[in-house]
């Protein structure tokens, strides 16, 4: 009788031991993985930490581009206008220095990896599926797309 009890106890303890060992290993593995991911996140953070602010500045860049587009012809050579354009250039340079580059769109084939279609046109003189015009520029930060270019695409029937 006592022997059976002892074996049962052993079996029970062994089961518990196995369970705990498994749990320990899993927890250790989780920890190792977490640490690895943490390191990755950290280095990504350093790379992309500025991306939030830069993303918020992009609409400002957009509006500058629009402003330049709409300069009334009669004041194009006005020195004040030229001065404001210089400010736009300055802003662009600051962003460039921080890893920002513009996505190419006009004349390119539409590519959803970097373009977002907001409308279509049917222009026989242009290639089917090409970008006819850009409404807002797209940008890459350190090679990663942070905003697709908003474009109008040519679609021939």
């Amino acid at each position, binding site marked *: 009788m006592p022997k059976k009890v002892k074996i049962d106890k052993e079996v029970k303890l062994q089961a518990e031991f196995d369970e705990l060992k498994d*749990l320990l290993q899993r927890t250790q593995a989780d920890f190792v993985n977490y640490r*690895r991911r943490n390191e990755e996140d950290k280095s990504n953070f350093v790379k992309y930490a500025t991306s939030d602010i830069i993303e918020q500045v992009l609409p400002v860049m957009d509006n500058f581009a*629009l402003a330049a587009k709409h300069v*009334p012809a009669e004041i194009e050579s006005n020195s004040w206008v030229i001065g404001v354009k210089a400010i736009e250039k300055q802003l662009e340079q600051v962003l460039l220095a921080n890893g920002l580059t513009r996505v190419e769109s006009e004349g390119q084939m539409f590519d959803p990896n970097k373009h*977002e279609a907001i*409308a279509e046109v049917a222009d026989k003189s242009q290639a089917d599926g090409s970008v006819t015009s850009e409404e807002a520029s797209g940008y890459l930060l350190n090679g990663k797309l942070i905003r697709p270019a908003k474009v109008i*695409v040519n679609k021939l029937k």
Partner: protein
Amino acid sequence: MGKIIGIDLGTTNSAMAVMEGAEPKVIANAEGNRTTPSIVAESKGGERLVGQIAKRQAVINYENTIFSAKRLIGRSFDDPEVKKDIELMPYKIVKSGAGVKIKMGEKDYSPAEISAMVLGKLKADAEAYLGEPVTEAVITVPAYFNDAQRQATKDAGKIAGFDVKRIINEPTAAALAYGLDKKKEEKVAVYDLGGGTFDVSILELGDGVFEVKSTNGDTHLGGDDFDQKIIDYLAEEFKKEQGIDLKSDTAALQRLKEAAENAKIELSSKSESEINIPFVTADASGPKHLSIKMNRAKLEDIVGELIKKTLKPCEAALKDAGIKKSDINEIILVGGMTRMPAVQAAVKEFFGKEPLKGVNPDEVVAIGAAIQGGVLGGEVKDVLLLDVTPLSLGIETLGGVFTKLIEKNTTIPTNASQVFSTAGDNQTSVEISVLQGEREFAADNKSLGRFILDGIPPAPRGIPQVEVKFDIDANGIVHVTATDKATGKEQKITITASSGLTDEEIEKMQKDAEAHADEDKKRKELVDLKNMSDALVYTAEKTLKDAGDKANADDKKAVEDKVEELKKLKDGEDKEAMQKAYDELSEAIQKVGAAMYSQPEGEATAQGDAAEEAKSDEPVEGEVVDEKKEEEDKK
């Protein structure tokens, strides 16, 4: 066995999460986003696109861009919802056997196959993120889904390569995310206002199981409708001011959409927002700009109707469940739209209770699914639920200061150790006074016990090394050991969890620490300075003694004077004067030290050697022997 991930397969957007240790973590997709649009498309070239990338070409490829497949999954062709969608959707829906199929490119796909494509992307992204294969998942569905819809969702998972461990209800997942399953009996209302649909569910928890008592909602009411109202308002205002209809201008409409969404989000945290769209359009007279101020009240006015629309289904759901408003224990908010203060206020007013909103409403369902996955995978066990030590633990050191060894809120089991030394010459024993609390001074904290370690070989102050180690096991029992590194002699004390502070006392202690933080800080700075002054006086006197004749008389006098001055001040309270005297003595003694080094070689050797020797076995002034070295009171 790998991890079982939780997936919220939404109508407009999907999200996924996984348990990491005992915490759920949302998994970002390959683009770095925490939600993925539930959109699939086939480009003209036959390329399949899933997620954000599919969304980007929707406008120019609407016939082959499939969204909201969830509205069709598991439904028959004659289902009224299907009929509605056939009218609304730009893609083609056809009858197929008992169900429907969707045309994309040249082929027809079942809604399950379409959803499988979304799930497939999630699977691939999860594997990339976790760095291991992911083959098991828990997928959520609306509580009102029937068997056919649930089975179809399971099929979608299977097609994507998942072994679907369980299909759980979205409101139940939300309740799990808030840990409500830990309670005994609960009546929970889940208010889910997403991008395109509104769902309200009444759940009842009993014996650890959630039962869905009733569901109701509006399948065509969501955040998109709120955005539309704002767009309409802005376009109207602009038309009034400038006489131009922006809605007919694609580019302008696009900017309006973005501006409307931004304004909506901003007004959730600010009471006023200025919507600025320069060069929004142009006419013969030149470029036009939109500049409209909107305050929260106006926004609530514009969308008020929509919010009201959500309350009727809430009434109906309660009625069907046979539960009164007042009997609801908790209300959970799900869906991005519930971030709007007006929505939260409406929910609070309706139920007469503050809703739960601590978990990100866009992610709460995925998180709940992950928790379920964790339970099924055996990861979330009681054994894994770890405690933290609520208050810092440490000992008393020179000057009555409380030196922490274990910071509060450290997860246990844990251990920490630090090397301390003696405060006086020939001190042969140290008293370890173990304390718990947050105050800077030992006397203000709670004493847990004290013991003495003796037999320390006589030595100048600061020389002996006594290692004090704190070890807390999983049950919260504290073991404190003091070991003399020279002799190996050790003494210890064991403190059981109950000998500390009660919950109320802990809270009071934390509040006190905050209240006295400034005062404590000043006192501590003073005591630190006193201790440093003591040490400096000691070192200065020793240096002079050791220098003997080598120090020139003037320098020596200067040091002696400064020592006297500091001696007088160090027991007082004038911190500024003490700091000044300290700095001056420090300078003076350095002069002596420097002078000693610049002695001509031959002359200096004999005495120099003696001085070097004497110098080498004591801590040099300004040098830190052990980074964390501190001194203890002799009792």
